[in-house]
């Protein structure tokens, strides 16, 4: 399948009109587009302030709706559901690809194709959601208006008709998913963090004060910071050392698999495995750690209840155990990419192994090191499963990610939960900014 690129299109037949390039044409386009957006915003406003109706009917395109699709899917035997979902997705992608391939071409037929696609697709997509009867007029109007606006902006775009259309089609699936799955929930959570338990009474910063004064809240903040500082450094140190040790050694693949294995185990599985290790009881020990302690004549220790912080370190070990393999695999690949000529040259210059490591290998794998460090830091900030499985947050082992769910499910306190989420968000923010900045730098270099 050959997709039209910008380069291709410049050689293709250009539109005869000049409204895309001359100043007057551009200004008219801009005015119309802005007016269109204002109109859409006005429609949305009218929809929101329209009088509420008690239990209105739902309008759908006959039996065709997203709801009925899921109902039909649920009726199928479990194994038939997988291909059914894949086929439905495949049809949607096929429609998008056909439009991307054909619609941007110049010509009367393709012009009509674009117009129909712009007007029909938004309407059908919104009608599949079965809007309520009091909203249906606004919904259809908004869909038609945005479709027409897109068509107009596309028709008069600087790069020629079809350019914007193609761009939107490429981006739309990802944009819709991100909006629904990440942006909307993030905004909703942020808004909820200023309301009380039930989400009706505005309480200002009370939830944030709770996070930093209540022992549960403060412990979750302290523990999260400990996790974020220790987990990445220790697991990267182990992973890097291991990757260097096994580099070019005999049996490298087997050694790699042994340490990589915990990565493939879920956090829940890892928690159960280590519960065995930490097991505590009187008499015969089941846990290896306590068996060793009693073998040397000590008393068995309840590892997961030793305060302060020892139990958090015990949980950290589980996380480090799973993440070392991840760090090792990526760093090992990076070390292999360091030219062996450089190492040999350094060797001829009379360096020892440690000098070769710090002066040749580490600068060579710097970008991989940063990626691994930031990834593991973000993962350790979001950790939930290990704490939930092993201690359930008891004995001050709670972390932000766990307490967030705990507050919401056990105590039904959406306000506290949302405030914890926003605090977590603030902790992750510097890392993302750092990552994003190095990313833009890389893109500029390219």
């Amino acid at each position, binding site marked *: 399948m050959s997709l039209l*690129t910008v380069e291709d299109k410049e050689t293709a037949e250009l539109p005869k009109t000049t409204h895309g390039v001359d100043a007057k044409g551009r200004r008219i386009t801009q005015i119309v587009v802005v007016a269109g957006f204002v109109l859409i915003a006005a429609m949305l406003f009218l929809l*929101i302030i329209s009088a*509420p*109706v008690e239990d209105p009917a739902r309008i759908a395109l006959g039996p065709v709706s*997203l*709801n009925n699709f*899921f109902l039909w899917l*649920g009726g199928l035997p*479990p*194994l038939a559901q*997988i291909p059914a*979902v*894949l086929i439905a997705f495949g049809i949607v992608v096929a429609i*998008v690809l056909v439009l991307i391939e054909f619609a941007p071409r110049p010509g009367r037929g393709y012009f009509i194709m674009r117009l129909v696609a712009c007007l029909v697709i938004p309407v059908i997509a919104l009608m599949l*959601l079965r*809007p309520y009867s*009091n909203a249906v007029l606004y919904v259809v109007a908004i869909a038609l208006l945005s479709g027409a606006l897109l068509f107009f902006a596309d028709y008069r775009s600087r790069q020629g008709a079809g350019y914007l259309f*193609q761009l939107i089609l*490429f981006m739309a*699936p*990802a944009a819709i*998913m*991100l909006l*629904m799955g*990440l*942006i909307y*929930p*993030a905004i909703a*959570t942020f808004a909820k963090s200023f309301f009380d338990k039930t989400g009706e009474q505005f309480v200002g910063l009370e939830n944030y004060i709770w996070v930093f004064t209540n022992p549960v809240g403060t412990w979750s903040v302290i523990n999260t910071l400990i996790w974020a500082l220790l987990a990445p450094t220790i697991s990267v140190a182990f992973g890097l*050392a291991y990757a260097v*040790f096994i580099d*070019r*050694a005999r049996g490298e693949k087997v*050694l790699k698999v*042994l*340490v990589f294995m915990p990565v493939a*185990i879920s956090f829940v599985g890892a928690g159960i*495995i280590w519960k*065995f290790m930490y097991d505590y009881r009187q008499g*015969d020990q*089941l846990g*290896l750690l306590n*068996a060793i302690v009693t073998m040397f004549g000590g008393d068995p220790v309840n590892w997961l209840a030793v305060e302060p912080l020892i139990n958090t370190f015990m949980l950290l070990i589980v996380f480090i155990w799973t993440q070392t393999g991840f760090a090792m695999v990526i760093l090992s690949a990076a070390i292999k990419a360091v030219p*062996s000529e450089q190492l040999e040259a350094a*060797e001829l210059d009379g360096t020892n*192994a440690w000098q*070769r490591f710090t002066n040749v290998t580490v600068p060579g794998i710097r970008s991989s090191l940063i990626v691994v460090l930031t990834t593991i830091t973000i993962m350790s900030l*979001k950790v939930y499963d290990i704490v939930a499985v092993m201690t359930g947050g008891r004995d001050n082992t709670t972390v932000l*990610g766990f307490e*967030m*769910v705990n507050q*919401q499910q056990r105590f039904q306190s*959406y306000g506290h939960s949302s405030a914890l*989420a926003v605090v*977590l*968000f603030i902790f*992750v923010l510097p890392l993302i900014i750092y*990552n*994003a900045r190095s*990313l833009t730098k890389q893109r500029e270099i390219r």
Partner: protein
Amino acid sequence: MSATEAIVRDTRTKRQVARDTRRNEAIAHKKLTSKGATIAAVIIAVFWTIPTFGLFVTSFRPGADTQSTGWWTAFANPEFTFENYAEALTAGGTSTTLATAFVNSLAITIPATVFPIVIAALAAYAFAWIDFKGRNMLFVFVFALQIVPLQMALVPLLSLFSEGLTINDVLIFPGLTLNDV
């Protein structure tokens, strides 16, 4: 000196050079790796494997034994069984057995792998090949969205699916009514 003689000498030199290169590479290789490092790696690998190995051994021990003695005693008086596996696959504690849970895993794993790759490939193509205003800004913004913790998205998504979209008490879209599926 005949032409054939020259060729023979040529191949001989070539072989000699190749042999020397191999030997030098082997020496260099040996100098860049060390016995001590390999031994340290093996020790780390053993420590990393013990927890999983313990679970593996436990999975073959009779249920009563796992409750009374540690897994390492199984080697002193071996008594192994496949009973645990049979039980887990056929009769779970709840109505869901491991076999149906496995089908559920497939139903999540396969679409969850295919969908993001296809959708992301479309967007990535636009980011890579189509030049538009604010491309870098948008790219960084999309990248920065990984900041949102999954737990943060769960509650709003659940209410969106089950209760639909209602703004300012005006009903716009209903939720999915899938209770009887």
